[in-house]
């Protein structure tokens, strides 16, 4: 079948590829572009491990066709650190032991980032709601919730 072109920015860098029509964004990112930070846990929309940010909104890359992202700005967890310095959310996840096997972590961080981008000082309920589409089979969630709250506090100290 003829390939179709897709072009978008990924973590600020221009990307252009020819893909099979109907390829999911998850497969395009992982297999074509080489960004393996979004994980394929279920390919059914239920685990959230494939979460990415498209034009400022949290989306599931396993249920998004890559072709529908032409011209979009896509953010993944691999684009968060700057010059080798971890993003406050990544730092907080490490410090709070919010990651064990790590499979859910990139999706959790994406969901948390969208939350903090819109709600810099979230309540615990806000955090639980924001992470409600993401499943973790290791941590029991509490360390993740604490990590997001800690990152929010460190952000606000930064800004102050």
């Amino acid at each position, binding site marked *: *079948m003829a390939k179709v072109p897709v072009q978008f920015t990924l973590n600020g860098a221009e990307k252009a590829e020819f893909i*099979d*029509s*109907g*390829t*999911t964004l998850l497969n395009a990112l992982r297999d074509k572009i080489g960004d393996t930070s979004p994980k394929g846990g279920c*390919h*059914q*929309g239920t685990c*959230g491990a494939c*979460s990415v940010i498209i034009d400022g*909104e*949290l*989306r*599931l890359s*396993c*249920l*998004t*066709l890559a*072709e*529908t992202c032409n011209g979009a700005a896509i953010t993944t967890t691999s684009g968060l650190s700057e010059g080798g310095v971890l993003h406050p959310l990544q730092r907080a996840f490490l410090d709070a032991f919010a990651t064990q096997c790590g499979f859910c972590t990139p999706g959790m961080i994406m*969901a948390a980032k*969208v939350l903090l981008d819109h709600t810099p000082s979230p309540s615990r309920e806000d955090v*639980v*709601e*924001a992470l*409600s*589409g*993401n499943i973790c089979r290791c941590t029991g969630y509490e360390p993740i919730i604490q990590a997001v709250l800690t990152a929010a506090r460190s952000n606000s100290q930064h800004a102050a």
Partner: protein
Amino acid sequence: MALALQTFSTVKDANAALKAAGTRYLGGGTLVVRAVNEGDVSVSGFVRSTEPSLSAIAVSGGKVRIGASVTMAAIARHPDLAPLARAARAVGGPAIRNMATVGGNLFAPAPYGDFTVALLALDATVSSDSGELPIETFLATRESNHAIVTAVGFSLPVEGGFRFLKVSRVKPKGVSVLSVATVLEQAPDGTVSSARIALGCMADRPMRARAAEKALAGRTLTSDGIAPALAVASDGTSPATDPIASAWYRTQVLPVHLGRLLLG
């Protein structure tokens, strides 16, 4: 296997392309792309339209028109649709709500279709290029519907007139045990002058609780007043047994939750 996606700027052209066997309209893709990922080989291609009216919300003179491509997240944050925000937020988690469209929700089989339950209670109309259908007719015939749904329309309920409740086991998000939406009008003396009650997960698609609606007419919203309605709440229902709940359980708890919604 790769599936071709065809994108058209007009609904008309997309409708023409959908005539090809095996093609499916692509809304947010949360059901149809999932089906393909799970190996549904009946789908051989996707068709979508980017016509701007599909993504528009218009509210004027108490009338609402929501384009079929509008997402649950867009409804939940729209200031003029505040009464509906609860129903829109009942669909999935944040990422699903950023993708799930009104059009797709109309086709979602139980245990999905929570927003459609709200639309059914609102007595919405469902529009396509071939005209407008009352939502009940649309739902009854949706398998044979091959035209792209372009919009839903309804009158905004009076302040406090619309109520919605979704029961799920996993909080804050989770698939429905059942959902209930009501649109009630009350006479000055507090008695119910008209009632529309819509149920989700009590059949293979959202349905009206006609017997309960009838039994509520002329009654007050008190425990005694609503008792006859609760007694017949399950009339005509045929819920599924699925991993979320058994049919028996759904039937048993429906009057409890309907009662809470009516008294709440």
